[in-house]
């Protein structure tokens, strides 16, 4: 691991505290589904923000809107600090981790991780060095030449995370990345993502439907209503306490999970009526 190198990023301009701000965004899909309605959210730089809500509440839609993969039907997405603010962030400034590992089976682990650099036209030697570095950071240094089918589910997800981080993005979007993993693997990966977040200072928007996961990871939790998704409640968490096995059994964690659970329940009740 080379933490110093990973943390090496330019300071953002003062006054641009938010990396992205959605105001009154709505999204209606072509099939008529209203996924989001009047969704407003400002994400401050360096946050670990969890979007928590029931299945189908538009969490993933919000993430795809931020990534620029789909366009909003109404409302506005602003990028206060971006040099090309109208179009979002430059390519490579956003990393995306899907629910599935979404790897190319015909490419080795290193080949998969190198893809974003290749598409950006990064010289081969530099790309190779960065791939080696990030594979070390996610604990896959020995598996660079392995193929995805030879890896376990957790390892594939690590490759996916490495690929998302290899361009040193300022924003990392994660769409229920660990939902399909077993609890033990998931806890390990939660710790690793937290470590990467602290090292790199990357802003993370993490979509989940797990109260416990969001309470363990986040600096801020946004609870959404059922479809059409709106922000129901927000909780800001104290991140000074070390997040580890002890934290999972601490009183602070219990209180947070209880608050989040209540907020989620209230969101469900309010959404049902809407």
């Amino acid at each position: 691991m080379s933490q110093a190198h990973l943390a090496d990023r330019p300071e953002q301009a003062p006054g641009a505290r938010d990396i992205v701000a959605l105001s009154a965004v709505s999204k209606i899909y072509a099939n008529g589904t209203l996924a989001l309605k009047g969704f407003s959210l400002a994400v401050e730089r360096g946050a670990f923000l969890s979007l928590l809500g029931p299945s189908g509440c538009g969490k993933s839609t919000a993430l795809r809107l931020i990534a620029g993969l789909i366009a909003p039907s109404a409302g506005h997405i602003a990028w206060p600090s971006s040099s090309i603010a109208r179009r979002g962030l430059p390519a490579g400034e956003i990393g995306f981790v899907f629910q599935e590992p979404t790897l190319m089976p015909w490419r080795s682990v290193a080949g998969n991780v190198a893809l974003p650099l290749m598409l950006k036209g990064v010289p081969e030697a530099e790309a190779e060095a960065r791939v080696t570095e990030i594979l070390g950071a996610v604990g896959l240094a020995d598996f660079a030449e392995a193929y995805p089918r030879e890896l376990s589910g957790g390892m594939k997800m690590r490759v996916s995370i490495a690929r998302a981080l290899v361009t040193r993005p300022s924003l990392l979007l994660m769409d229920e990345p660990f939902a399909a993993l077993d609890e033990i693997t998931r806890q390990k990966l939660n710790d690793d993502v937290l470590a990467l977040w602290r090292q790199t200072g990357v802003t993370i928007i993490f979509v989940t439907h797990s109260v416990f996961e969001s309470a363990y990871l986040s600096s801020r939790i946004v609870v959404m209503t059922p479809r059409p998704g709106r922000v129901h409640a927000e909780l800001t968490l104290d991140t000074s306490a070390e997040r580890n096995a002890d934290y999972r059994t601490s009183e602070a964690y219990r209180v947070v999970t209880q608050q989040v659970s209540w907020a989620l329940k209230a969101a469900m009740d309010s959404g049902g009526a809407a």
Partner: protein
Amino acid sequence: MSETNRPPRISTAELVLRVLVPVLVLVLAIVAWHWAVTTYEVPRYIVPGPGEVWATLCTDWPILLPALLVTLRITVSALVLALIGGVLLAIVLVQSKWVELALFPFAVILQVTPIIAIAPLLLIYAPDTPTALLICAFLVAFFPILANMVAGLKSVDHNLIDLFELYGANRLQILLLLKLPAAMPYFMAGLRIGGGLALIAAVVAEFAAGSAGKGSGLAFRLLEAQYRLNMPRLFAALVLLTATGVAIFGLTSFIAWLVLHRWHESAVARER
């Protein structure tokens, strides 16, 4: 996180058995053939024994080899043209659903029409018989390759397309780095089917063409041997065709294995 699912190595003994068993059964069948022919004293003009077929293959080699080369040339050229045409048209088709919709009726009409029924027409229009045979074999091999390739190009994981777009990839990059590799298993399936069909079509079309004399393929030699009741040569020609078919199958399967064995389940031994 040290667990991996590397496929277990096949033991040498099993590998030997895997080759030995089918070869042994084949040899046994030939021995049985020989035994039946000699025991029941079947006349050679009804069923020749394997020894006689082999002898004929050797003596008639100067007649059979040129015919084989003609058939082989038609088969291979048809397959190559079908591969190029099938892949290129598939790429065009998946670019836009309107192009696909517009060409769909033609694809269906050509696919459901028995190609051999077009042969008489082709024989009139084509400048010479070999060209007509080539077109026939091409048409037959073309559609499985096209159909497989279209399915393959559409089988790409949508999230991977999103990923490419997230990093600003253009259409050409998505095609070369994502869609074509993803379609490889389908392409290989099309290659294997198309290779076999091209040979069949080359022979059947020659039957329909009724070409004769020098410069004709194995089908002509088959018919000629039939008219003359030259059973040993008929069998020899048949054996040659079968061997060609097996060789094409083996070669295309090997190519598929070569390309896919590192990553695709179809080319990897199941773990037990």
